[in-house]
């Protein structure tokens, strides 16, 4: 059994060295479920400390404990992981950056910044499938052994932890990336799992295409500072190309965009607010513009972009913000904050009639808002 596993891995790895339309994916066989290794082995030691990290995650106030959302994501993972489903445990985390990670003990983390950015189940499946690929092939053991021998193991652990400054990880990127061969293998396996689960493999490249768009919007910025994922994986452009190429040979499938949008809808405004508060104006505008284009009927994205313009408030920004707020309102179902945002701009510009109109509407839509007393006060000042 071990030998077959080894051969399967070797085949996939060697095939991985020559990218091209893949017979190699068909040769890959899912390894059997893993037994918990002996604590005395280094693999066993790694599991044990991952269990500790998992306990921290379980107790963290940053974990999203919503049972419905969690079981929905768990189902997607199960479809991908097949027989390994019982060994994978998903944790959703409140964190505004794009990241997902799977530890050798079966613990999978997904950050809210990622859930905001993926358009559909297929794109989520692409990322999670890739991580499951690393897990199935035990790549982190290789990285762990390598890191250990470099005696900088603790930073490796930081990749799996909830706590950790993202910026720090950028500086150790090279040391903890999987080998090129392992990365390619995980991409191939990820696509294979996606495909077998019925998802459209063409969506995998789109994930990176979308992230590239955001990264390019900030020419001065360093994408590796935006996510541990960027710091430890091959450059986004390369991945996008590789994945597109590999996907070309696989059958089409579903994306389940509608279901994904429905299931994440309760969190949309919260995640958008977190994104806006990042204060990375160019990146946020690029992201939000893309989301607006994708979902033109959704006022939340337009309103969020308006908020970013208003925050940046350079010469033309306030006009751009007003235009976006108005567009959001025209769509209907707009967040009450759209009216507040407009009111703030009109107030700044000393336009009392418009200010009154906007703030009044805001209070109508959100009478219990935390700042309702302050807004009422602004209205009273105007003699409303």
């Amino acid at each position, binding site marked *: 059994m071990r030998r077959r596993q080894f051969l399967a891995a070797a085949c996939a790895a060697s095939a991985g060295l020559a990218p091209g339309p893949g017979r190699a994916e068909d040769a890959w066989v899912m390894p059997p479920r893993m037994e918990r290794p002996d604590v005395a082995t280094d693999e066993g*030691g*790694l599991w*044990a*400390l991952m269990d*500790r990290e998992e*306990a921290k995650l*379980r*107790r963290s*106030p940053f974990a999203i404990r919503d049972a419905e959302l969690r079981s929905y994501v768990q189902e997607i993972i199960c479809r991908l992981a097949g027989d390994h489903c019982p060994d994978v445990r998903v944790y959703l985390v409140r964190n505004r950056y794009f990241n997902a990670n799977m530890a050798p003990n079966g613990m999978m983390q997904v950050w809210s910044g990622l859930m905001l950015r993926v358009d559909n189940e297929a794109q989520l499946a692409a990322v999670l499938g890739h991580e499951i690929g690393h897990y199935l092939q035990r790549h982190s053991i290789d990285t762990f052994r390598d890191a*250990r021998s470099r*005696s*900088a*193991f*603790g*930073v*490796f*652990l*930081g990749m799996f932890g909830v706590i950790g400054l993202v910026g720090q990880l950028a500086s150790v990127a090279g040391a903890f990336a999987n080998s090129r061969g392992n990365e390619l293998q995980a991409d191939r396996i990820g696509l294979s799992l996606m495909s077998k689960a019925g998802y459209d493999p063409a969506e995998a490249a789109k994930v990176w295409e979308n992230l590239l768009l955001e990264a390019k919007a900030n020419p001065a910025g360093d994408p590796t500072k935006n996510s541990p994922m960027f710091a430890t994986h091959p450059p986004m452009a390369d991945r996008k190309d590789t994945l597109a190429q590999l996907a070309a040979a696989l059958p089409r499938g579903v994306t389940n965009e509608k279901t994904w949008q429905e299931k994440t809808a309760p969190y949309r405004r919260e995640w958008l607010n977190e994104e806006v508060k990042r204060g990375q104006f160019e990146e946020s505008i690029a992201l939000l513009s893309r989301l607006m284009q994708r979902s033109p009927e959704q006022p939340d994205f337009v309103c969020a972009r308006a908020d970013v313009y208003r925050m940046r408030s350079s010469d033309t920004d306030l006009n751009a913000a007003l235009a976006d707020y108005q567009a959001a309102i025209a769509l209907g179902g707009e967040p009450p904050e759209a009216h507040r945002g407009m009111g703030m701009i009109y107030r700044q510009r000393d336009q009392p009639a418009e200010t009154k109109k906007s703030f009044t509407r805001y209070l109508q839509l959100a009478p219990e808002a935390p700042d309702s007393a302050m807004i009422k006060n602004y209205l009273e000042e105007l003699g409303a």
Partner: protein
Amino acid sequence: MCTAALSHTGFAHAESLNLAPGFETLPKGAKVVIMPTDIELFSLTAGGVQEPKADWTEAASRYFRAALIAREKALGLTATELNKDDADELSDVNFLHAAVAQSIALHHFGPSNLRLPTKDGKLDWSLGESVASIKQKTGADYAVFSWVRDSYTSSERAMAMFALALVGVGVHGGSQVGYASLVDLNSGRILWFNKLARASGDLREPEKAKETVKALLEKFPVAK
């Protein structure tokens, strides 16, 4: 007015430093719950940066816990631990205690110029009714919390230290910082607190972990 304040005062009143006013000893056979230890081990790189060492921490965690329970039992106390579910549910109290303990370590056991005048030199901190949930879950009357941060000099640093020592510059080699506290689960008062700050000690092996626990629980207030 900036004058150096390097000495730790208070050794003359060592006992009142560790004990809350009016408290002396735990009754023998008192039921004590051992809260999960917060422990991290680090390696100091040549540049003096602390890198967490998760594999060391994992081992140390196990040895420390075993040594702590054994020691409490040896002191004649009924020591219990929390199960995983209870530990999860009580994590808020654990986090709160850690924040308070850091302040005690800083403002009561730290340099004299950081003392808080309103505390009047006394160990006078209480977690109030936040500990009621611990009592509820365990039936214990007291809880022991502990926290350890241990850093070791990596070989690069040892080399750098040696080189600098040759030219007469002293460099910090590594240290062990920890605390243990005893909390009354009826009032929330911190009855006893000890801080460990020393340059030696090794938690990576069971015997050495026992020794660290012994140092941390030195003068743990039990009726003789």
